[in-house]
C-alpha cells in the first residue's frame, strides 16, 4: 500500500479512482497523564505522554484508512489529509482521509 499526500503516485500511473476513504479514532488519556500535564502546565515543556498518544492514534487512523482502501480494492491512497479536533475535555478525535486509487 502506497500512501502519499500529493495528487499522484511518483513514477506510477493511476488507472482507476475509487473515491474517498477515511479512518478515525477518538482517544482519551488516563488520569495519570492528566495530572502530569497539569504539572507541566506550570513548568512548561513538551508533554511527551500526549505526543506519544497522538502519534499512536494517528497511526491507528491511517491504518483504518488503509484497511478501508484495501476493502475497496485499491493499492494506493493519495492526497491524504489529517485533522484533529477535541470533542470533549480530555478526548481528541484524529481523522485521516484520502483518495483510494489503483496504480500500475
Amino acid at each position, binding site marked *: 500500500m502506497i500512501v502519499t499526500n500529493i495528487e499522484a503516485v511518483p513514477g506510477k500511473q493511476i488507472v482507476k479512482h475509487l473515491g474517498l476513504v477515511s479512518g478515525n479514532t477518538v482517544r482519551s488519556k488516563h488520569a495519570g497523564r492528566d495530572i502530569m500535564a497539569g504539572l507541566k502546565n506550570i513548568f512548561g515543556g*513538551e508533554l511527551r505522554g500526549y505526543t506519544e498518544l497522538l502519534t499512536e492514534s494517528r497511526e491507528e487512523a491511517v491504518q483504518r484508512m488503509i484497511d478501508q482502501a484495501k476493502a475497496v480494492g485499491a493499492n494506493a491512497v493519495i492526497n491524504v489529509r489529517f485533522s484533529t479536533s477535541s470533542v470533549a475535555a480530555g478526548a481528541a478525535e484524529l481523522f485521516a482521509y484520502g483518495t483510494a486509487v489503483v496504480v500500475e
Partner: protein
Amino acid sequence: MYDLIIFLVLLLLGYVFGQRAEKRHFKSIIEREKQLRDILVFSERKIPEADKVEGTLVCGSVVISVDFFKRFVAGLRNLVGGRVSSYESLLERGRREAILRLKEEARERGAQSVWNIRLETSSIYKGSGQSIGAVEVLAYGTAAKTR
C-alpha cells in the same frame, strides 16, 4: 494572603523552569537543524522527475505546554492588545520541532527530500478559563527516495 503567596511561587517556578526549558529546547533545535540540513523540505506539490522517486507519507508531531508565567503574561497582554510574544515563541518551537521530527522520519526511510509539507496546529488541552494549555503541531508530507 496564602493564595497570593501560592500564586507568586507558581509564577516564579513557571518563569525559572519555563525559561530554562525554552532555552534548552531552542539550543537542541538549532543543533538538530544543522544535522538534518541535507534533507530538503518543500511546500511544492509536484515532484520534479517524479518517475525516478518513490514516495511515502511521513509525519512529525509534538505537544508543547505553556508555563504559568507565560500564561499570566499573555493574560495581561490581553488587556491592552498587541503582540503576544510569549506565545509566538511557543508556536515557533512547536513548528520547528515538528518539522525536525518529520525530517528524522524521512531520514530513517532513506529519503532525500520531503514534498507538499503541511503544518497543522491545534490546541488540544484547555487550561483554566479561555487560555490554551497546550498546542499540538503536526507536520506531514511526502518523502521522496530515489529509486
